[in-house]
């Protein structure tokens, strides 16, 4: 993509002289480099995943996917997503609302904190929870006294996933809501709307595409999370194995066809995610345009600059 854009710009800027000839060579070199790199790093691996999965026929792939352990992994992954995504959506909206609609002190500190899971290695994220809830951990004795199992069980997996995917929704909403300002909400309140009415009738429609985008990214990451989950899961087959962990186990047992079949499932979901993402990006651009049009007219930007 980037290569094509550059190429268009170059073609446009090229003056009608000998320079044009050499710029054409540069153009083709750039395009070729980009295409070769994309093919090697992205297309080829994708093709191999599906090729390896189907190498021994449809039946083998289907058997791998319908194996009880695989089904358990699918169920656990679905459960994790079903917990982590809604929690992060609610947290993301609340955090973005708090940061953008109120005058909060230490705003940038809060935003940095929200970003923390992005900068911490997932393995460390997993270890944090082991240290907190594990048998030797801070809350371990209390938890085992009350017979609550978090580490090496689904709650730990859900927690680790939540931690890793926490920034997605908030990070998507904060700049969007900052750009939109508080005028619409203030208008709604001055017209007599209460907090919920303002949120559901005014704020939510304004942020829906950003929210959908953040949710999709969050879901994709929750589905594929490996590192943090690997630490807290304990790899108990049919019990605490998520899809990515199941792929790893199959691979380590030299069941390549089965491993790639399950991997193919994850890749398929990822491809769907990309399609959904592109659709939402397209819609967001449209609604941003509408936002720009819904605001002040273009001809008056100068006057605005002069006003308060």
């Amino acid at each position, binding site marked *: 993509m980037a290569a094509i854009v550059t190429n268009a710009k170059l073609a446009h800027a090229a003056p009608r002289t000998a320079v044009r000839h050499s710029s054409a060579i540069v153009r083709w070199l750039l395009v070729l480099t980009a295409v070769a790199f994309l093919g090697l790093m992205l297309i080829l691996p994708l093709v191999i995943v599906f090729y390896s999965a189907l190498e021994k026929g449809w039946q083998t792939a289907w058997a791998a996917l319908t194996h009880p352990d695989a089904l358990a992994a699918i169920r656990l992954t679905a459960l994790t997503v079903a917990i982590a995504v809604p929690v992060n959506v609610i947290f993301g909206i609340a955090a973005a609302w708090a940061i953008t609609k109120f005058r909060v002190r230490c705003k940038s500190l809060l935003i940095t904190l929200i970003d923390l899971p992005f900068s911490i290695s997932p393995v460390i994220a997993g270890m944090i929870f082991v240290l907190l809830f594990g048998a030797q951990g801070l809350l371990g004795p209390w938890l085992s006294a009350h017979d609550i199992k978090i580490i090496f069980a689904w709650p730990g997996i859900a927690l680790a996933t939540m931690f890793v995917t926490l920034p997605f929704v908030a990070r998507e909403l904060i700049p969007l809501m900052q750009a939109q300002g508080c005028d619409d909400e203030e*208008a709604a309140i*001055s017209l*007599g*709307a209460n907090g919920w009415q303002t949120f559901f009738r005014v704020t939510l429609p*304004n942020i829906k595409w950003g929210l959908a985008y953040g949710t999709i990214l969050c879901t994709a990451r929750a589905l594929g999370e490996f590192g943090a989950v690997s630490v807290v899961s304990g790899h108990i087959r049919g019990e605490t194995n998520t899809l990515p962990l199941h792929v790893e186990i199959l691979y380590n047992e030299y069941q390549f066809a089965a491993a790639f079949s399950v991997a193919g499932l994850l890749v398929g979901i990822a491809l769907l995610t990309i399609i959904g993402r592109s659709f939402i990006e397209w819609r967001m651009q449209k609604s941003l345009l509408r936002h720009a*049009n819904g605001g*002040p*007219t273009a001809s008056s930007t100068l*006057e605005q600059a002069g006003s*308060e």
Partner: protein
Amino acid sequence: MGIEVANVTKQFGAFAALRDVSLRVKAGELIALLGPSGSGKTTLLRVIAGLEAPDSGSVLFEGEDATTRHVRDRRVGFVFQHYALFRHMTVFENVAFGLRVRPRRLRPTRADIRRRVMELLHLVQLEGFAKRYPSQLSGGQRQRVALARALAVEPKVLLLDEPFGALDAKVRQELRRWLRRLHEEIHVTSVFVTHDQDEALEVADRVVVMNTGQIEQIGTPEEVFRSPASAFVMNFLGTVNVFHRRVDSLTPGPDAIELQCPDELPAGSRPARIFVRPHHLEINAGPTGAPGLRGLVQYINAASPQVKVEVLSEFGEVLQIETSQDRYQELALQKGSEVFVTPKEMRVFFDDGHHGPSTPSTQLPDRMS
């Protein structure tokens, strides 16, 4: 409904947006808050609306303390500078919003809402636009939708933040007159914020001139324009020529002002600024006996009802002068002509210390002519 603002102070961090501001708005009045950026006019409007809580002082609606009353319960119609129309709703839904969010027992029936919205769209001359979205409207139309939406809840006070700020000049002119007529029709107490002195003077019953968080002057447009209470007001309301001179403070009269000797210091005189509006400077071909200045015409712009002449005075001051087309023809003015300039009317503000343009009102001089 009458509004009273009493000793309101508002601070944003280290910035004092409002400093002990008091203001009384009579029922049915149309008031303009006029001032430059950062003068606190928008903050004052937001405090009246309840969108901003004052640090101290109070806001009274009809004599009743409303300082802690929630925006929702104040019954104010607020029109935002950038309209803040709900983009995902049609014009009709926008205007109906305030009626639809009412609690069920107060909510009008569907038919009533429809009738009321159509009435309002008729009032703002947008009947045919009910099904359009805000993005399909021009700036002026959006502003009128915003106004109709604010009026839908039958507000007791209408507050408008730079209502014409984001529109181009011609639409602005039309909307100004239209707002004036609308106000005469519905007569709801209205306060609007503007940084454009023409707008304030043309539309408002009374003008409140603000500067650095304080009120400089309150008066009818004529009062404010004819007898500005401070150098700031004089400066802000249109073009003005400023002469830095020394004035005999003991006998303030025409004789006490000597435009001729800017550097001499007669005993007992005080430094002052003499303000003269461009149309109060008279151009003559030679000395007339009245106090005045010699100068050379530098620039002439005759492409308006009043001819604008720029004269470089003998003391190096550039004077902005407005004269009639007839007088311009009579004097046969040209670039480079030598002329004699006489002020017909001037105002003097002493600048004890160098406190800038906002001379406190206690130091106001007498008016001279």
